[in-house]
Each structure stands twice: as structure tokens, then as C-alpha cells.
């Protein structure tokens, strides 16, 4: 299985920070397509979730590598034989490990990965709410706060009714 057939190899020469994918074409060949459109649709959906294990971050649906073609044919065979999507995935995981799944399963190893959005959002929300609460509870520096309020009122009067304050006030803080 040569690396040259997948886009990874092409990247060796390519600029950094770019959308780097090589110009391989026609991943799914016409002779692979199943005659049953329902099965074929399932095959396509499945193959988009399976990694071409010799490529750089490319699904077997996109890849032009011979191995990806073998896997596409294999999974179609299994589907025609009546396997469920899950059974096909299990079969491939047994052969190639979890590495083959582009969507990693939720388990002990990936718990942090899957919970990241919730943890970050939740944690940040708690921080914000606490900060807002603290800002309210804070004993205010009377003289300063008064001035600010007055300034605010003044700005409100100056700005028109949609409440947009004019931004140039802060210029007075320039040295």
C-alpha cells in the first residue's frame, strides 16, 4: 500500500497552514457502486465515518488509496451479506483498532474529549455568573461610582433614545 496514492504524501512539499489535500480524484469508482440505492447510501454514510488508515486524516470515502478501495469493497460485501452498520464497524475495529473510526467511541479514554464542550461552556458560564454576582455585591467606591453614574446619565442624555453611548469619552484618559 503506497502512501503516494493518498494526500498525505503530497503534503510533504506543501505550504504550512493551508488546506492541504491532494488532488486525488474519484475515490469511489463506478464499479464499486452497489445496485441497491438504499444499501449504497448506507455504504457511503459508513465509509465517511471510517478512516483510511494509511492516509492523513482522510476517510475511505474520500481516499484514492488501494487500501481504502479494499475497505470500501469489504464493507459493501458485509452490507450485502446483511450485516448491520454496527456489525460492520465492529468487524473493522477488530481488524484495525479504534483508529479506524473517525468518530471515536465514548469510553474511558475519550470521556474528556467528548465532554470538553460541556465542561468548558459550563465552567465558563459559572465563572461569568459568579463574576456578575460579585460585581453587584462589591462595595462601591462611592465617589468614583457616583461620577461614573453621572457620566453615564450625561451620555444617555447626549446620545439619542436608542441608548448608544458616544465612544469618545475615554479620550480624556489620554495622558
Amino acid at each position: 500500500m503506497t502512501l503516494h496514492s493518498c494526500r498525505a504524501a503530497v503534503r510533504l512539499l506543501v505550504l504550512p497552514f493551508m488546506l492541504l489535500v491532494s488532488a486525488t480524484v474519484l475515490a469511489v469508482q463506478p464499479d464499486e457502486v452497489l445496485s441497491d440505492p438504499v444499501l449504497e447510501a448506507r455504504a457511503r454514510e459508513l465509509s465517511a465515518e471510517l478512516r483510511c488508515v494509511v492516509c492523513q486524516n482522510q476517510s475511505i470515502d474520500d481516499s484514492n488509496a488501494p487500501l481504502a478501495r479494499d475497505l470500501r469493497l469489504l464493507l459493501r460485501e458485509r452490507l450485502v451479506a446483511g450485516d448491520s452498520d454496527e456489525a460492520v464497524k465492529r468487524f473493522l475495529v477488530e481488524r484495525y483498532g479504534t483508529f479506524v473510526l473517525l468518530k471515536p467511541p465514548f469510553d474511558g479514554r475519550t470521556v474528556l474529549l467528548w465532554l470538553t464542550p460541556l465542561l468548558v461552556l459550563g465552567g465558563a458560564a459559572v465563572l461569568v455568573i459568579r463574576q456578575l454576582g460579585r460585581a453587584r455585591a462589591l462595595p462601591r467606591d462611592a465617589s468614583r461610582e457616583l461620577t461614573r453614574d453621572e457620566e453615564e446619565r450625561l451620555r444617555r442624555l447626549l446620545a439619542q433614545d436608542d441608548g448608544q453611548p458616544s465612544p469618545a469619552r475615554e479620550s480624556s484618559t489620554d495622558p
Partner: protein
Amino acid sequence: MIVEIGHFALVLALTVALIQSALPFWGARARDERLMDVGQPAAVAQLALVAGAFLALAHAYVVSDFSVENVYLNSHSAKPLLYRISGVWGNHEGSMLLWVLILALFGAAVAVFGTNLPRALKANVLAVQGAIAVAFLLFIVLTSNPFQRLAPAPAEGLGLNPILQDPALAFHPPFLYAGYVGFSIAFAFAVAALIEGRVDAAWARWVRPWTLAAWMMLTLGIAMGSWWAYYELGWGGWWFWDPVENASFMPWLAGTALLHSAVVMEKRDALKVWTVLLAILTFSLSLMGAFLVRSGVLSSVHAFAVDPARGVFILGILVVFIGGALALFAARMGELRQGGLFAPISREGSLVVNNLLLTTACATVLVGTLYPLGLEALTGDKISVGPPYFNMTFGPLMLPLLVALPFGPLLAWKRGDLAAAAQRLWLAAAVALVATVAVYAIAYRGPWLAPLGIALGVWVMAGSLVELASRIKLGQASLPDAWRRLKGMPRAGHGTTMAHFGVGMMVVGIVATSAYQSERILVMNPGDRAGIAGFTLTFKGAAPQRGPNYREEVGLFEVERGGRAVTSLVPSKRLYDAPRQTTTEAGIHASWRGDLYAVLGDEQVNAAGGYAVRLYFNPLVRMIWIGALVMFLGGLLSVTDRRLRIGAPRRTRVRPSPVPAE
């Protein structure tokens, strides 16, 4: 000779950068104005020197001087001029040179245009800029010298990777780098403010135009890359959640958050600590992208993995700058006085929500990109985190952001009225509802959620127009009055409307093309007809042709719709002379409904002149890039407004007269 001058200029630039990083900083400490003022000429001199080095390398490329190793490895005399020039940054060494050139450009811009900056702040900003330049110039001089000579000189070069020989990719890196490096200004301002221990609303006003400029460039750069991927790769995809793409997307997300939080800081003196931290993080993510891509850590088979010394060097830069800035931040955080209280339902509150969601999305992309590396390093287990993960996590985070987006600009500062905002948005909601029904009616197939996704995009588009209408009091005041308000509105206001409208367009394009793409994979013999999305294509056969530095096989498809000839598509497969690589050029017909997209595959052995062919119809796909362009133009409107305001010194004016339109 010119090459040696370039090399010399580069080393000289390093010396100047050392001066620029040390003297102004020392001057700001010692309150010595003469030392502080060194920053300005140093920044300009650095630009001149780096530009000289860059031009010297570009000259070597243009005249195909193969005695320079870099030119020999990456160019070829038969290449068109455009690609000989873009070849300068089509490789590691040259792209680093472009990186420092843009850095010097931004530094000099601060020096020249920042006339109303306080002296000490300007000195510190230029010093930090100088320090970044020192690090990267040292990196180039020590590990990645583009001026290395070869003896004896080869007669012909090896050529540029063919997939880089494309107009969109030629200009993709400069824009992208302008984005990354532009954020270094926000970073330098943040560090300078921390050094001085003083951050105020004026600081935010100085930082915003630079951040905005960087954000615009990055937006355009990413969009160009995505556009290229779409027409070049041959399966109609435009975003792959590839680690390299993610490396550019993370600074964009953080930069977008920074853009919004800086508004709060400028107008209301709130969110100071967060804005400063975000300015540091945004540039840190840019640097991290550089490390991830150039060190080869992402994969054993990856760009520039050849030389681990480079990876370690960049890691060092990363540790010094990110670690140093964060340590400074931790030390000075307590001194930053928080001002500007606000109620949860307010313009500030809505921008906090924006920041929460964008930051979480950014963290998710970061963790998703790095998790496989971390897990493998810790346990040896290899897992893959691919597009399905990112679609499942990123999408739900964008959903509330897009729903909330139109409310934000309609809420007042300090304390907003959600019900009133909702009332004003009824029209947008109605338009979105009509869009949902219409999409259900037109597209009876596809995921049932897709019409709602399109409605969401329409909601954002309509919402931004509603906001504009309510600002100019359309419908309440007389038409001439509304027109007068429209003209009197500051450009930044129009910029916001436009950028948000662009976001909506992009959402519509993304949902439409993801949900309703049609595809046909088949073998076509000359004379065969195939139908897709109402078009009928007749394959006329394929013929070989000769280009300037490639040979190609060009297929011809006649396209009809409803019995009338529409166009002909000429997809091709190219084989470049040097290096010998193949690329595909899709044949694309753009219409207002979407793109008809044809790809020529392999010649079939059995059939008489038959080819494997892939046909796609990508509905509304262009909205993705047009949306990005509209976002860029929105930024442009906004930044021109800023520059006018920044340009005029206002120190003595305590209070400006109110703008009639506000």
C-alpha cells in the same frame, strides 16, 4: 551577489530587531524619551531590511537562479511568472521570510500610523514586536536559511508542487499570514499594557483596528483555501476538519471573540481582564498553529517533518512568548481595575454570550485536534478524531450563537429590553418561517432538520437588516429622514450589519450544500448522456492537450437544461512536467441555484473511450465564499471608519457633539 545582499540584509534586520526589542523597552522603564523613540526608526528600518531580503529572494526566483538551493528545490524555469513569484512562499524557508516581512510591515505600520499613541505604550508595543521579530529572524538565520548557495549550480530546478500552481493558492498564504501575524499587534498591545499595568478603554480603541485588519485577512485567507479545496480536489468538499485547517480556524474563532470583547471594553470599559487574556490567547493559537504544522508533531508523515531541530526551536519560541505573556498576565491581572457594570440582558451580556460560545468552540477544536496526540503520548492508544466529531460538537455550539446573534445589536448597553428586541425582530422571524416552509416545499428529500438550518441563516440575514432598519428608524420616521440617518451612520455600524449578513449567507450555503448535494458516479462512453438536478450532460469524449508546464487530458461535456444548451464543461486531469504529479481540474458551471460540477476520472480499460465520471450538483454552495467575502467587506467598512477616527487626535476634547444618527 543580490542573493548575498539579501542574506546580509536579513542578518542586519536581526540586529535591528534586537535594538528594537531592547532600547524602547529600556527607555519606557527609565522614562527616557530618546530611548523610547528609537522604536520608530528601528521598526521602519527593519521593514526596509526584511523587504530587501524578500525582494532578493524573489529576484532569484524570477530569474530562476538555481545556484540558490531554495530556488532549485522549489522552482522551474518553465513555470509561469505568477507561480515563480508565489513559489517564494511555496516552501518552508520562503514562507518564514514572508512571515517576518508581514510582521515587519505591521510593526512599521504601528510606528508610522500610531502617532497618537502614548509614548511609553508605543515604545513597549514596538519592543514586543521587535522581540517576536528577533525570535523568528533567529529561527530563519539558524535553521531555515533561504539564501543557501549550491555549487555547482544545477541547470534546472525541481519545480513547485503542482497543486500550489493555482491562483487561489498563490495568494492564500499571504492573506493567512497577514491574519496570524496581525494578531501579534493585539498581543504586543496586551503585553505592553500589562508591563505598564494600565489598561483602559482608549487601549481597546487602539487595539481594535489592528485586530479587525488581522481578522479580515484571516477570514479571506481561510475562505480562499476552502474555495481552492472545493474546485481542485474533485469531490466538491470545502472543509475537512483537517488538523492543518483547524490550526488556522482556531485563531479565527479566538480573533472573532476578541473583536467582540474589545467592543465592550472600548464602549463600556468592561471585560478588561478577559480582553487582554484573549489578545494573548489569539496570537498564542497562531503561534501554536505554526508549531503544529512545522514541527511534524501532527503526524509522522507531515509537512516539514524532515528537521526536528526546527520543531524544537518553534516550541522554544512558543514557550517563551506564550508562557511569558501568561505569567505576566497572572502577575498583573489583579491590578486591572474592572469597570462598567451591566445587567445580564444587555449589549454587554450578549457579547459575553458570543465570547462564551466562540471560546468553547475554539477549545473544542483545540482539544479535538490535540487529543489523539495526547492520548497516544500518554497511553500509546491510537484513536482518530475526524469530521464526525467536529460536526457533532461544533454545530450545536454554533446553534445558540446564531439564534442569539440578531438580538445582540438590538439590545441597549448596560440594561437591555429583550422583549422589545424580540418585537423588533418579528419580521426577521416571519421571513425565516417563510424560508422554512419554502425549503420544505422545494426540497422534499434530505434531512428533515435542514430547512430549519437554512431558516437559521435567513434569520441571521434578516435580523441584521432589521437592526439596520431600526437604527435608521425606517417606518417610524419619514423616508428622507431615514435616508439621512442611513448616510449619517458611522461606517462601523454598516460594517457590523454587513458582517453579520455575511455570516447568515454562509450558514445558508453550508446547510444547503451539505444537505441537498446530489452526486452521480458512473462510467460514460463518448455520446452517453447523464442527468443530474435537472441538467442533462452529454459526454463528447476526451482529448490530450499541452499546457505551459503540463500535459492534460480534457473531457468535454455538453450541458442542457429543459432541452436548451446551457454550457459546456471541460474538466481535465493534468500531469505536470516537474515534479511529475497529477492534479484534477473540475469543470464547474455556476448558476444562481448552485454549481454543476463535473470531474473526469480514469480511462476505462474495457469500454471504448469510456471514462469514470463524477457529477455533482452543489446547491447554493457559492453563498459560503460570498458570505466570507461580505464578512471581509464588512470588516473593511468598519476599519476605514476606525482609521478616520484614530487619525484625528482628540485629547483635548472631553465630549464630542452627539452624532445625529446615533
